[in-house]
């Protein structure tokens, strides 16, 4: 039995001179004046999700809503709007449950002084976790308001009906009273001991219907305010003296030359040296005049050697899933495939860099932040400034894209420190270079997959290993008698894995794992001489997965064909945030240039109850478009602790010419609870493109992104 193994693509000469700094030593360097947020490997395990909070939402429904005297329902949520569309979906849920029109629902989001405590906007939790609790609150408010109407109108409860916020006697419609007159703009004091049920899906009028975004009128006119648009009288623009490399600590900063620019103010506090000016240009001009000295640390790993580095740094394997016996599976196998799959470090690069505006008034600090985590950001500010949390107010206006990268907000703490030290209102907006440097990157990925097929085209065993990039989405999903999943992390004495901070990137870990699994399936189907769709169906028992695969095949107009068929068709499927998703794509490969054009992509998704099919469609399109980036071009370049990538000239994100035809089908599952919608489709983009490239050319691409150079290299081996 011959085991085929692909060649690992790494630089042949890994620099070894400096050696890697053992983790303990590395951390020693990090005492005192460290300017960066440093995430040691331990955080890698939790990277899939920020630490789940234990606090629960308030019991009093007034925390979620307020009804004004003119009948406007203000809905309060600690969630924020960063493009994902919960501003619309949550308003739909509130309006439907309360029986008011959606036009009368106003959203107040991410203001720690006004909104109920919230763990943050990540993990597609807004609709699936906050939404149902908000509906319960709205249902109770509605029931209380009807009771109040019953008393005032002197009509029995059973005879009352509600529409558009007006409670009416079914037998005599002259007897009616609005929520506005009942609530009178005040807190509703009455509560129910027995909580009323939320609406059944059959009663929905607004949930499940497609609604256009409710924020677009503000966004097309420039009226929508982001953190950088906040204007405070006397506000000064801040720039901070930044370290040239990760983990470096400031030794000294000579600001003499910078201070020669009239109007420059310097703020110093241990590791923090900041310049302030009323003009952004002047502070930009001044910051480059600062002569700063840092004690830097060195690591020899680069983007070219990271895979070798992973193997040296992650020697501790934990088996997280085991069934049957791999050795027994090997014996059952007719064919065996042994592969390694790689993914590069990827940036979030939202169009809006991390930004914060801060002011101090008396003993209250207010900070407007481009954050996914208003309450955690508030707590971080309070902790750093040694202030009680209630003296810190964080307000999150519209956020210009997050994708996980704005879960972490060092700029908010920095702005708060500077405003406290200077007494001046401050605007701190990262440059694009700072944005790339301080981003909590999606880690590079390495997956080793060894699997077998028996004579009947069934998967006989599955041995899947995940290195350092998170295990979300590493589920086998296929029905395999002998299977094992091992997660490799940094061992006690292993070198430090990542030179910089890593963090959650839209469906963290799942893009890597799904890419590896689905590409392996593509190769197995080809080896078995089977159509990849038929191979999947034969090896699946999960009815939901079969359903999304069949739905996407129908939408795509798929016809069976053994790979490589020359048609350029790819398939990938998986699960994320309790949603089942399958994609099909068609690509064209230019064999002379190595350029890949994605022609069309279809998606089918089972996400349980879909609150806003239109918003979901936008998220699917966004996932597909954004996902082309990590599949085709996005890969950060770094040399040890120095980030080489600084702007969009060398970090290429998807553009208009890339855009495929996209269509999608959302399975009708209105009887089920809602699941996540903002992340699932992106997990399949690596696998669907790599398998489509294989189908087009017969070339196997193991390494994301599939750059033209990698494509041409792989074509040589066909």
């Amino acid at each position, binding site marked *: 039995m011959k085991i085929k193994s692909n060649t690992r693509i790494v630089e042949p000469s890994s620099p070894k001179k400096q050696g890697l700094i053992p983790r303990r030593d590395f951390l020693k360097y990090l005492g005192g004046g460290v300017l960066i947020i440093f995430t040691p490997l331990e955080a890698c395990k939790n990277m899939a999700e920020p630490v789940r909070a234990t606090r629960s939402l308030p019991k009093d429904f007034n925390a979620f809503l307020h009804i004004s005297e003119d009948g406007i329902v203000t809905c309060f949520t600690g969630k924020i709007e960063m493009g994902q569309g919960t501003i619309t979906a949550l308003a739909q849920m509130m309006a439907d449950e309360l029986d008011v029109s959606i036009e009368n629902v106003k959203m107040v989001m991410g203001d720690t002084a006004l909104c109920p405590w919230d763990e943050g906007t990540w993990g597609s939790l807004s609709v699936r976790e906050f939404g149902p609790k908000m509906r319960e609150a709205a249902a109770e408010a509605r029931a209380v308001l009807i009771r109040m109407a019953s008393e005032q109108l002197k009509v029995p409860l059973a005879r009352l009906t509600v529409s558009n916020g007006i409670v009416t006697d079914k037998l005599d419609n002259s007897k009616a009273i609005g929520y506005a007159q009942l609530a009178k703009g005040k807190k509703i004091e009455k509560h129910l001991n027995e909580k009323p049920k939320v609406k059944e899906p059959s009663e929905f009028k607004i949930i499940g219907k497609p609604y256009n975004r409710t924020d677009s009128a503000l966004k097309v*006119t420039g009226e929508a305010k982001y953190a950088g648009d906040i204007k405070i009288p006397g506000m000064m623009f801040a720039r901070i003296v930044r370290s040239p490399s990760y983990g470096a600590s400031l030794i000294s900063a000579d600001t003499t030359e910078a201070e020669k620019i009239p109007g420059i103010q310097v703020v110093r506090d241990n590791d923090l040296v900041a310049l302030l000016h009323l003009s952004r*240009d002047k502070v930009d001009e001044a910051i480059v005049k600062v002569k700063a000295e840092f004690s830097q640390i060195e690591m020899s790993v680069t983007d070219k050697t990271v895979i070798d580095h992973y193997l040296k740094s992650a020697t501790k394997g934990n088996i997280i899933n085991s069934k049957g016996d791999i050795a027994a599976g090997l014996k059952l196998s007719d064919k065996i495939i042994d592969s390694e799959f790689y993914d590069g470090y990827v940036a979030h690069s939202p*169009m809006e860099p991390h930004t914060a505006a801060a002011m101090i008034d008396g003993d209250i600090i207010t900070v407007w932040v481009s954050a996914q985590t208003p309450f955690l950001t508030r707590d971080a500010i309070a902790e750093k400034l040694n202030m009680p949390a209630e003296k810190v107010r964080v307000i999150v206006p519209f956020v210009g894209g997050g994708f996980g990268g704005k879960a972490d907000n060092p700029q908010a703490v920095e702005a708060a420190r500077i405003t406290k030290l200077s007494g001046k209102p401050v605007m701190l907006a990262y440059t*694009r270079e700072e944005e790339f440097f301080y981003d909590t990157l999606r880690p590079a990925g390495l997956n080793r997959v060894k699997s077998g097929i028996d004579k009947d085209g069934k998967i006989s065993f599955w041995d899947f290993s995940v290195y350092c990039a998170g295990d979300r989405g590493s589920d086998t999903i296929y029905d395999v008698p002998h299977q094992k999943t091992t997660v490799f992390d940094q061992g006690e004495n292993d070198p430090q894995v990542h030179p910089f901070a890593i963090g959650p990137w839209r469906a963290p870990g799942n893009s890597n794992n799904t890419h590896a699994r689905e590409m392996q399936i593509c190769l197995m189907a080809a080896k078995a001489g089977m159509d990849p769709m038929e191979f999947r169906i034969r090896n699946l028992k999960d009815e939901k997965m079969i359903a999304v695969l069949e739905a996407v095949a129908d939408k795509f107009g798929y016809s069976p064909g053994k790979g490589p068929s020359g048609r350029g068709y790819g398939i990938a499927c998986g699960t994320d945030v309790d949603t089942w998703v399958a994609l099909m794509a068609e690509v064209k490969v230019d064999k002379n240039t190595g350029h890949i054009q994605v022609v069309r992509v279809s998606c089918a998704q089972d996400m349980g109850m879909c609150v806003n099919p239109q918003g979901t469609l936008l998220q699917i399109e966004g996932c597909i*478009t*954004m996902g082309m980036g990590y599949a085709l071009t996005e890969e950060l370049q770094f040399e040890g602790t120095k980030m080489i990538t600084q702007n969009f000239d060398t970090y290429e994100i998807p*553009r*208009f010419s890339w*855009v495929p035809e996209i269509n999608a089908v959302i399975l009708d599952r209105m009887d089920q609870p809602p699941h996540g919608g903002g992340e699932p489709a992106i997990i399949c983009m690596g696998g669907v493109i790599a398998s489509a490239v294989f189908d087009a050319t017969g070339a196997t691409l193991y390494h994301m992104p599939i750059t033209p150079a990698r494509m041409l290299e792989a074509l040589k081996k066909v």
Partner: protein
Amino acid sequence: MKETITFQLNGKKTEALIDPTETLLWALRNQFGLTGTKFGCGMGFCGSCTVLIDNEPVRSCQLSAGDIAGKKVVTIEGLATDGKLHPVQKAFVEHDALQCGYCTPGMIMNATGLLLKNPSPTTEQIKEGMEDNLCRCGAHVRIIEAVYTAAKEMKGGK
């Protein structure tokens, strides 16, 4: 040194005492309060700061305030007239051609400039004309449709 420059800003004759070397983007945002024009990359790569100067879409992060003397400047705030959205703005709303909205003003200004030059673009010409405006949320497919729709409406209006 500050200088008085005269130019047209969003349809109004404007005289302002400004530092002519100040970056146009910061002058628009901080001096004129027109914060619809966004900072994205500071190097002219992303297009978030696009405005029209004499009907030409330009990157305001790459220009100085002095460059607009005697010129006609239109920012996103100046596109709607008499409270009525410009056809490009309207089409962006109708098509849901945005998500986070941060690149949107630049997209709309660039598309408006494109349609001024080519009132009947093909889909390919729209892609080509919009190519250097970046969007991270992936609203591209809808932006293309919106620009196409706006072109049709603008022609119909003539």
